[in-house]
């Protein structure tokens, strides 16, 4: 038994690999596309496997907001899916609210409110109210309590005026509020929120972040995955950074940022970017972790570099980007953000 809201020990999840996507060292030592049967003896060769989660350890305290960050394919969604019992781990164990995710899966589901797939997780041909009444029944809330709880959540999410309209007529933000209400219906002690602000306009995202902070005040434990570093920084008590199926760093946002305090971030805005420049900039001594991001559809690029000593590196950077149609538009030396920590640890931006 555990005192943690969520505790995972050495969680591993492997999937049969598609051709060419297996682990470099498949357990069988076979090629990534093994021949399944060898006639005439019907000898079955082991499948090549792809490891999505590779020994994740997590201990999430009751009442904390824990942010799980990672680029696409890092293993955060697979980890969440194991914790909410949609997937069984290949090995390792995890407990949610003290219940084992394999042996006591239904108790785990009863302890969790989950937002996965956001607006697609509700019925668009039902009204907002009908959706909540339906899910209240699935979560075994007695009808009399369910009616009051649905009213309470509709009020809280400011959906009273539109509660009896079909969800297909709602905006993305309104649908997301219904999806979050669904997760809150049974008042579960633990909430798993997978990219809850994805696709929301800035105002709706801000409102949702306020709601998440309120839910923590009410005593909920929240496991949050997000692509938005600022959001993780703002909300999380602690953050786990996951990459290639492993938790590679776990600390408070401040603790993580302290790790690269001695580094400086050079942020350039330029036009006429070409890939050859990346190699040239990386070759400058003391410069590392270059990331680029195109700003909208225009030929304007944001280039971030980490440097031990920006004063020493800057003249050489400027020298490299001058000419060949590239033009420096803006340049800043900024304090490291959580995103820079992430780049420092993984060598790639979160949206890569």
């Amino acid at each position, binding site marked *: 038994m555990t*005192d943690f809201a969520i505790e995972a020990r050495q969680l591993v999840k492997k999937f049969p690999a598609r051709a060419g996507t297996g682990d470099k060292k498949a357990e069988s030592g076979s090629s990534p596309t093994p021949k399944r049967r060898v006639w005439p003896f019907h000898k079955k060769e082991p499948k090549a496997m792809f490891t999505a989660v590779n020994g994740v350890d997590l201990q999430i305290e009751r009442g904390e907001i824990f942010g799980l960050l990672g680029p696409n394919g890092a293993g955060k969604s697979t980890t969440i899916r194991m914790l909410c019992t949609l997937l069984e781990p290949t090995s390792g164990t995890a407990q949610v609210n003290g219940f084992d995710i394999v042996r006591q899966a239904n108790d785990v589901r009863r302890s969790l409110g989950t937002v996965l797939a956001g607006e697609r*997780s509700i019925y668009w041909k039902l009204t907002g109210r009908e959706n909540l009444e339906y899910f209240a029944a699935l*979560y075994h809330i007695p009808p009399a309590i369910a009616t009051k709880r649905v009213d309470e959540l509709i009020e809280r999410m400011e959906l009273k005026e539109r509660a009896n309209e079909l969800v297909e007529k709602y905006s993305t933000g309104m649908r997301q509020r219904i999806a979050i209400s669904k997760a809150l219906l049974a008042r579960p002690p633990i909430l798993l929120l997978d990219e809850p602000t994805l696709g929301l306009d800035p105002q709706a995202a801000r409102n949702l972040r306020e709601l998440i902070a309120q839910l923590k005040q009410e005593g909920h434990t929240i496991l949050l995955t997000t692509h938005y570093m600022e959001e993780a920084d703002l909300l999380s008590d602690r953050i786990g950074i996951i990459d290639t199926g492993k938790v590679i760093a776990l600390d408070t946002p401040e603790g993580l940022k302290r790790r690269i305090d001695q580094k400086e971030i050079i942020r350039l805005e330029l036009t006429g970017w070409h890939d050859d420049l990346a190699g040239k900039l990386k070759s400058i001594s003391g410069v590392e972790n270059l990331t680029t991001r195109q700003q909208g559809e225009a030929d304007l690029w944001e280039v971030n570099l980490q440097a031990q000593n920006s004063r020493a590196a800057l003249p050489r950077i400027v020298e490299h980007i001058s000419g060949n149609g590239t033009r420096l538009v803006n340049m800043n030396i900024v304090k490291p953000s959580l995103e820079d920590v992430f780049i420092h640890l993984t060598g790639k931006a979160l949206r890569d």
Partner: protein
Amino acid sequence: MRSESSVKSLAVPGIFADVQAFWAVVSREWVIFIRYPSWIIALFIWPVIFPMGYILTARALSGVDGSGLTTFQNTTGLNEYVGYIAVGTMIWMWQNIVLWAVGYSLRNEQLRGTLESNWLSPTWRFSYLLGSSIPQLVSMLMLMLVSGLEYAFLFRVHFSGSLWLTLLVILAAIPSVYGIGFAFASLVITLKEANAFVFLVRGIVMIFCGITYPLAILPAWMQSVAQWLPQTYIIHGVRTAALSTAGFSAIAFDLKMLVLFGIFWLAVGYFLFNMMERRARQTGAIGQY
């Protein structure tokens, strides 16, 4: 010791909660069903249009004056060939609609993105399949009733048999028809699409079960295959009960076979569902589109 959270859950698990959840699935499916107005076409128009081709072919072969019907009467013991074809095609439509509607019910949820959110709740997972079949069954019974009335009043078909015996055969047929649907639903989730299987199954039913002709005209090997298909007994049972005055004894064997097939197919459906559910937990198939 497990430390308790300060947040107290509102859930009250128990049998009542399971029944309430099952009923919620039934209600949800019904509400969504009637919000797509195309069901009206399915209910009133399709049952008349679909058998029409067969009926007109039969009319052409029997002669406009019906002189060729003697052979049909000698083979089937019935003289109501329009009713004979209508019953056969209705049973075929029933199985066909179940394969599409029940067989693709979980897949449609998966494509909408709602299957995972259902799966995340503590409700017994077979409820989703079972519950979504009930509105489908109700709509199918409505379709049979409307079709019967349309054939009686528009085509002057004389249903000389017993309504209660007809209902008894339909009742006995439900487990096998829906058991096949449940088995299909699990197959579809695993394979992602099974159109080819639907075409195969309905093709087999169409050819082997005699939806428009008596089995006696088939070669012996085809008759042997037909006796392993529950639809053969449904079609024979409903025709005998609805179009003849032969009574209970004439359908007793059909009923017995339908009960046996029902037990078999429900067991197969439930077994395959559990297998699919376990496999999905291992492979993540539920969340894959």
